[in-house]
C-alpha cells in the first residue's frame, strides 16, 4: 500500500513521575489496517491508546496520527479520531438518542447525515427499539455498543478502542464485532486493546505488551509461527496420570485440560516432548493464546512452582448448597431463583458477563448479603442466620482484590491471620503454609502497592486461606491477568481442591471453563445451565464445541423459552 500511514509511532514512552509505564513502542499502521494491542492489566495498553488519541502527552518518542504530530497538534488528532475509553463513557442520564445527538453535534455532523447514520448504526447495534431509553438503564453490552455508535457517528478514519468487549456478554460481543467489521470494510483503521486472545487473532497485526514493554509486533500468523512446534495435543486413557506427568515435566510451560481426556500443552523450548508411557501426542497449530504464553515466557523465564500430587476426586460431602436463592434490589432482580450444590474437592465455575449476578450470588453465599428469598447452606451453616460463623469458615477473594495497598505483604498476611483468630503461636507457620499453597514466593517486606497484579492475586489468595477454610470463593480472580499467570493460578486452585476445599470461582474468560469440574452459566440473574462441560455440550448436541458456542446455545435456548412463556 502506497498511502501514507495512519499512525507512525517511534519509540514512544510515557513516565508518571519516576515510574515508566510504557517505553520503546514503535510501529506503523496503514490505512484500513486493524491492530490489536494485547497484554495483561498494567501492561500499558490504555496509556498507549491515550497517547495515540492525543489526550496524553508522550514523555519521549515521536508519534504522528492522521498526518499530525500528537505533541504539536493534539487538537487536530483529537478532532478526527474516534476514541472509546475503558468502562462506560457516555452520559447515563441522557437517552440513547440524546447521547448520539450530542456526540454528533460536538463533532459538527450535519443534521441530515446524523439522522441517516443514526438509523443505520442503531439498527446494526440492535438498539433501534431503545432510542428513548436512558443510557444508564441499558445492559453493559448495550452501553458498549452505543458508545461504539457514538464514536462512529462522525465516520472517523481511525478508531481507537480501549478494551471494548471487557466484561460484555458473548452475544453483545459478537454484535460489537459485527459493527467493527462493517467499519473495517468501510476502510477505517482500528487500534484496539484487549485481553481476549481470540479477538487479537482476528486483527491484521498484533502488538504484544507486557510490563510496559513490547514483546512482539507482527501478524497473528507470524506470532503463532513463533510458537509452532511447541504446542501439542495429548490424549490419554489415564488423564490423571498424564496430568501428573505434565505437572512434573520441566519442559512443559503450561497446559490446559480441553475435554475429559485431552490436554493442550505449551513447551518452554523447541526440543520435542517425550513422555514415558507413550500417550498420544500430536503437534497442533498454535493459537494466539499459545503464542502469548510462549513469547512471554521467553522474555522473562519463570520457574514454575510445580509439585506432583494426587489427582483430585470430589467426595460426597456437600459443602455448599443453595435452594431457590433470590436477591432483589428494589425492582431489580440481581439473582433469580438459583439452586446449586458444591461438594468437597469440587471446583464450580460461574460463567457469565458483567451484571449476570455472579458477584451477588457469591456475596450471598459468603453471608455478606442476605438473600431476599431461598436458602443457602455453606459448610453446614445457614448463610442468612449464621452469617458470622459462615464468614469464619470460608475464604473469599473479591473482584477488586481486598488487600491494604499501603501495607506490606507481611502486614497484610498478619492482619488477615489475626482477623480470623489464628492462635499466635500458629501464626508464622500458618502464614508460611498459606503462601506456599498460594504460590506466593515474592518478598514479603514490600508494599502491596508496588506488586504486579498477578503477584497481588496470589497474595490475596494466601490471605484468604491462612485460616484453612473449607470453602473458597473467588470472584473473577484472573481478570486482567496474562494467560501464563492465569494458568498458574488455576493450578493453585486445582491443588487446593485436591486437598478437599470446595471452590466456587467466577470468571468471564470462557476458556477457563475447562479447568472446572462443573459450570454454571449465568445470564440476567438466572442460572441458564449447570453441569460438567461435556454434559452441557451433549445437551446441545455440540460435542467438542467451544465454551462460547455452548454459552450462546444456552442463551438462545433461554430466550426461546422466555418467548414461548
Amino acid at each position, binding site marked *: 500500500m502506497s498511502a501514507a500511514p495512519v499512525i507512525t509511532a517511534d519509540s514512544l514512552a510515557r513516565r*508518571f513521575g519516576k515510574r515508566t509505564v510504557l517505553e520503546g513502542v514503535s510501529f506503523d499502521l496503514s490505512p484500513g489496517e486493524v491492530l490489536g494491542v494485547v497484554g495483561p492489566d498494567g501492561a500499558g495498553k490504555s496509556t498507549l491508546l*491515550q497517547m495515540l*488519541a*492525543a*489526550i*496524553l*502527552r508522550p514523555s519521549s518518542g515521536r508519534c504522528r496520527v492522521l498526518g499530525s504530530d500528537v505533541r504539536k497538534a*493534539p*487538537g487536530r488528532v*483529537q*478532532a478526527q*479520531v*474516534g*476514541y*472509546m*475509553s*475503558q*468502562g*462506560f*463513557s*457516555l*452520559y*447515563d*442520564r*441522557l437517552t440513547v438518542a*440524546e447521547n448520539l*445527538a*450530542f*456526540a454528533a*453535534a*460536538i*463533532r*459538527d455532523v450535519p443534521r441530515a447525515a446524523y439522522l441517516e447514520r443514526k438509523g443505520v448504526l442503531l439498527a446494526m447495534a440492535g438498539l433501534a427499539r431503545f432510542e428513548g431509553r436512558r443510557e444508564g438503564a441499558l445492559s453493559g453490552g448495550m452501553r458498549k455498543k452505543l458508545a461504539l455508535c*457514538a464514536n462512529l457517528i462522525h465516520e472517523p478514519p481511525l478508531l*481507537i478502542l480501549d478494551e471494548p468487549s471487557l466484561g460484555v456478554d458473548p452475544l453483545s460481543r459478537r454484535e460489537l464485532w459485527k459493527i467493527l467489521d462493517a467499519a473495517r470494510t468501510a476502510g477505517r483503521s482500528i487500534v484496539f486493546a484487549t485481553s481476549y486472545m481470540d479477538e487479537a487473532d482476528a486483527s491484521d497485526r498484533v502488538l504484544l505488551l507486557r510490563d510496559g514493554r513490547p514483546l512482539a509486533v507482527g501478524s497473528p500468523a507470524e506470532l503463532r509461527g513463533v510458537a509452532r512446534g511447541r504446542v501439542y495435543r495429548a490424549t490419554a486413557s489415564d488423564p490423571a496420570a498424564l496430568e501428573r506427568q505434565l505437572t512434573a515435566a520441566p519442559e512443559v510451560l503450561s497446559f490446559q485440560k480441553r475435554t475429559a481426556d485431552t490436554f493442550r500443552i505449551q513447551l518452554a523450548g523447541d526440543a520435542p516432548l517425550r513422555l514415558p508411557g507413550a500417550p498420544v501426542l500430536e503437534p497442533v497449530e498454535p493459537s494466539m493464546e499459545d503464542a502469548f504464553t510462549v513469547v512471554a515466557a521467553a522474555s522473562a523465564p519463570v520457574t514454575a512452582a510445580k509439585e506432583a500430587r494426587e489427582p483430585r476426586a470430589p467426595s460426597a460431602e456437600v459443602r455448599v448448597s443453595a435452594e431457590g436463592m433470590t436477591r432483589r434490589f428494589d425492582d431489580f432482580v440481581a439473582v433469580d431463583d438459583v439452586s446449586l450444590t458444591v461438594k468437597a474437592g469440587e471446583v464450580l465455575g460461574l460463567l457469565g458477563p458483567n451484571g449476570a449476578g455472579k458477584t451477588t450470588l457469591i456475596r450471598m453465599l459468603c453471608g455478606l448479603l442476605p438473600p431476599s428469598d431461598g436458602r443457602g447452606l455453606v459448610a453446614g451453616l445457614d448463610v442468612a442466620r449464621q452469617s458470622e460463623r459462615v464468614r469464619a469458615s470460608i475464604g473469599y477473594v473479591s473482584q477488586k482484590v481486598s488487600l491494604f495497598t499501603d501495607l506490606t505483604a507481611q502486614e497484610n498476611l498478619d492482619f488477615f491471620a489475626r482477623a480470623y483468630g489464628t492462635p499466635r503461636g500458629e501464626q508464622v507457620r500458618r502464614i508460611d503454609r498459606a503462601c506456599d499453597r498460594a504460590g506466593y514466593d515474592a518478598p514479603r517486606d514490600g508494599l502491596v502497592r508496588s506488586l504486579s497484579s498477578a503477584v497481588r492475586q496470589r497474595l490475596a489468595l494466601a490471605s484468604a486461606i491462612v485460616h484453612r477454610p473449607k470453602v473458597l470463593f473467588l470472584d473473577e480472580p484472573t481478570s486482567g491477568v496474562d494467560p501464563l499467570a492465569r494458568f498458574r493460578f488455576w493450578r493453585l486452585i486445582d491443588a487446593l481442591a485436591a486437598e478437599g476445599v470446595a471452590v466456587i470461582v467466577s470468571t468471564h474468560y470462557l476458556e477457563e471453563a475447562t479447568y472446572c469440574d462443573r459450570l454454571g452459566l449465568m445470564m440476567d440473574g438466572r442460572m441458564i445451565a449447570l453441569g460438567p462441560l461435556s454434559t452441557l455440550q451433549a445437551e446441545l448436541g455440540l460435542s467438542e464445541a467451544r465454551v462460547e458456542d455452548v454459552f450462546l446455545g444456552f442463551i438462545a435456548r433461554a430466550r426461546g423459552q422466555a418467548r414461548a412463556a
Partner: protein
Amino acid sequence: MKLSRTLAFSRKETLEIVRDPITVWIAVFMPLVILFLFGYALSFDVEEAPLVVVDHDRSAASRALADQFVNTSYFRLAASPQSEEEAEHLVMRGKARAVLVIPPDFGRRLRKGQDAPVEFLVDGTYASTAAIVSAYGRAIIYAFPKGTLELPVQPQVRVWYNPQLRSRDFIVPGLFAVILMAFPPLLTALAVAREKELGTIAQIYASPLGKFEFMVGKLLPYAVIAFAQLALVLAAGFLWFKVPMHGSFALLIALGALYVICTVSIGLLVSTLVKTQVAAMLVTLILTLMPAFLFSGFIYPVFTMPELFQGYSARVPAMYFVNISRGIVMRGAGLADLWFNVAVLVGYTAVVLGLSSLLFNKRVA
C-alpha cells in the same frame, strides 16, 4: 470557537441537571435553608438580658432605678438576691448576665444632691454582648432620675442607615454574598469533577470540542442556575424578611449578576485542579464558604481585623459584594460610591477565567 458545539454542550449539561434531583435540591433549597437559618438565628441584638438587682437601700429611689432597667426591652429581672455573694453565684451559674448593686444610702445621697454611686457588673464571657449590655446599662443610669442625661457635654448621637440597629437588616444583605459564594461554584466544580470521575470527559477530550467551548458550554447552565439563586435569595430577603431597600434594585441585580459569574468561574478553576467529586467539594468549601463567612465582613468587620487578615480578606470576592450589597440596600449607595468594589470583581473574574483556561488541558494526565 463554534457556537453550535458550545450550545450542544450546554444543552447536554442542562438535560443532565434537570434529571438529577440532587443538583436541583442543592440549587434551589440549600440557598433558602441557609438564608432562613442565618436570617433567623444570627442576631446581635440584645433583648431580655437576665439582670439581678441587689438593693441594699430599699428606698423609693432605688426601686425607681431598678424599674428603669426592667421597663426596657433590653433587660428582664431574673432575681432580687439579698447579697452580692448570692448575685455572684447566679452569674456563675449563668442565670444572670448583669448585676445592679445599689448601696444602702443611695436614696438619701440623691435627695441631698450628692454623688450617688451604684455598681453595674456585666458578665464578660460573651464579649460583644457584654459591650452592648454595659452600654445600655450606662445609658439608663446616666439618664436617672429625670429620664434625660445631664452632663456638661451632651453628645447628640444619631445612627444613620439603620437607626433601630436591627441586625437582620444588616445580616440579610451580607447573606446574599455568602450564599452566592457557596452554591454556584460548588455545583460547577462538581459537574466537571463528575465527568472526570465517570470517565465521560475522555470522550470530550478526544473530540473537536475546544477548551473554550467546553468552558463556556459548562459555565452557561450553571450561570443560569446562579442567576435563579440570586433572584430567589433577593426575593426572600425583601419579601419575607422585609429588609428595607434604600437603593436601586436594578443596580443590585446587575452587580449580583457580575458577582455570580465571578463565583461560578471559581468553581471552574477548582474543577481544573481536582479529579474527584469529593475533592471538588472539599476544595470549593475551603476556598469559598469558609472565607465568605469569616473574611468577607459578613459577621466580623474587616476594618477591625489585624492587617495580615485584612490582606487575606482583600482576596475574598465575597468581601467586595458584601460592601456592594450592604451599600446599596442599607445606604442607598450608587455606582459612584461602589466603583472600586465593582472594578475589583471584574478584575477578579478575568483573572480566575484566565487561570482556568491556562490550567484546563484536553489531556487525561
